């Protein structure tokens, strides 16, 4: 198991290094002259040249990359060309807000999604199952930003219960804080529930038809024991992987949702930095998202291995 974890961790690091190269490579292609951005449009070519030399922008790309990556490892994420302040603290703040949003959504998605999936599978072919299926079809079909707009139209414009956008820190009062979280969370949950519940349903149905369930029936076990002890454990294994993938999807989802709800998190920061050619911020933000995503996947793999005896013990008794 220790060897397995080490190997997986090494792979994560490799992937992240590759992602950082990709991100850095693509962003250096951006038609943005950093020196111009800093000095303003009226800078003389000599001034630009001098600053470029100072910032090392005339060095070969690989040297720039190494300098950038080195800074990243030591915690120096560079300085935002737009805001003119260090990227690190800015990013951390946005990250905290985004994790609040995605964490809350993730818990809701996992609990409701898995629950709906199991219930639908056990009522396979009955009205409840069909109801869940139709609802999840809608969930998959509706783009997130449209959900967001529907939520705004209904809860903000029509009912007037929730603010249409923005963010309030906890210090402004619990209700103020929560009010601004409800709408984006609701939107994220709507949009992502379907994957989890559909997969849980299909894997549960598949497991319930497997020979070892028939064998458990042949032992005369009560249905409750068959579902909880024999089926659930095996049926949830693939769901774990999908939950991890979904965490990644959520990290993507916040790009749109935070933009619509003007929620000052990581997603909005990414869009903002692209629109304004703020390279240091963009590079750091995407790398952080990739890291979170990779760690979520790693965690899922480890959990999967923990629950799956075939991976947990690589031994043969006989």
């Amino acid at each position, binding site marked *: 198991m220790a060897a397995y974890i080490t190997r997986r961790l090494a*792979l994560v690091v*490799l*992937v*992240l290094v*590759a*992602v950082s190269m*990709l*991100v850095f490579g*693509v*962003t250096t*292609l*951006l*038609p943005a002259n950093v020196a111009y951005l800093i000095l303003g449009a009226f800078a003389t070519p000599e001034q630009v040249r001098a600053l470029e030399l100072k910032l090392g922008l005339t060095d070969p790309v690989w040297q720039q990359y190494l300098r950038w990556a080195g800074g990243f490892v030591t915690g120096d994420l560079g300085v935002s060309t737009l805001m003119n302040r260090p990227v690190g603290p800015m990013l951390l703040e946005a990250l905290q807000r985004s994790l609040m949003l995605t964490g809350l959504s993730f818990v809701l998605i996992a609990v409701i999604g898995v629950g709906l999936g199991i219930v639908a599978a056990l009522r396979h072919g009955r009205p409840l199952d069909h109801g869940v299926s139709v609802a999840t*079809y*809608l969930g*998959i*079909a*509706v*783009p*997130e*930003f*449209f959900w967001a*707009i*529907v939520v*705004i*139209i209904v809860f*903000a*414009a029509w009912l007037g219960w929730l603010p*249409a956008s923005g963010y309030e820190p906890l210090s402004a009062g619990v209700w103020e804080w929560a009010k601004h979280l409800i709408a984006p969370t609701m939107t994220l949950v709507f949009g992502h529930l379907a994957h989890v519940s559909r997969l849980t349903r299909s894997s549960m149905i598949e497991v319930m038809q497997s020979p070892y369930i028939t064998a458990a029936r042949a032992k005369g076990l009560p249905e409750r024991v068959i579902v909880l002890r024999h089926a659930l454990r095996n049926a949830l294994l693939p769901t774990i992987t999908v939950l991890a993938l979904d965490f*990644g*999807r959520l*990290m*993507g*989802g916040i*790009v*749109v949702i935070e*933009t*619509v709800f003007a929620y000052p998190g990581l997603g909005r920061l*990414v*869009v903002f930095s*692209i*629109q304004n050619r703020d390279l240091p911020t*963009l590079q750091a933000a*995407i790398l952080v*998202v*990739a890291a979170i*995503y*990779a760690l979520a996947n790693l965690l899922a793999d480890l959990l999967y291995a923990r629950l799956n005896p075939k991976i947990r013990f690589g031994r043969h008794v006989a």
Partner: protein
Amino acid sequence: MPLQLKAGLAITGTILLLGLLAPWIAPHPWDTISMRTRFLAPNATYWLGTDEYGRDVLSRLLMGARLSIGMGVAATLFSLAIGVPMGLAAGYFRGWVDEALMRLADVLMAIPPIMLGLLVLAVTPPALWKTALAVGFVYIPPIARLARSVTLTLANEEFVQAAKARAESTSYILFREILPNAWPPLIVEASLRVTYAILLGSALSFLGLGAQPPSSDWGLMISEARSFLDRAPWIALAPGLAMCLLVIGINLLGDGARERLDPRLKARLGKA
């Protein structure tokens, strides 16, 4: 034919047809600005109302259908064109080819699709065809992975050994023996991928990195309508609902086709 497939065909077919015929059946010009007709609620002349520039929402919607479908299909074709050969090669040759291609896929999959799309699009001034390309690029890894797993299963089949036993070339084995059997699951996956592509593409347009004004791309329409949700919600609702209908239609089509997949093949390929 199962109901699912029928419904899917009907919905997708209708939207496709309306989109293709849009220039001839649209009741009003889609791009003529008229300040006198701004923010009209749906009525007998403007069935779906007008937008902030006084343009007919229905006409814009119809013109937008071809953009959305075209973008989705083009993006999927692009990812198939690159992903399928990649997956075939990885699954058939195994070894370092497999390792290299799949690690590459890992790297691309480590960034959420929308951010990867943003990253790719950030390099150049936005345009819809670039969005299609970016979306297609983003969905290469999942297509390649599916093609690989299907190929892995098929490469173990004895008919591949039989082909080797009569000295067939590698390209014959890949394209004449394996590929015809890999198509059904790939086609089903591709049809579902079209919906992902439409959703992702419209999200990118929504963020301003796809179609540009005055285009009537649905994502862009919704994005532009955002500022008027309290005054004129129909401008956003019309393209939003149209997109839902389209995605549901294609999903039904794909799921229906999956049900009809040769059951023996399906059993053999497992959940690939």
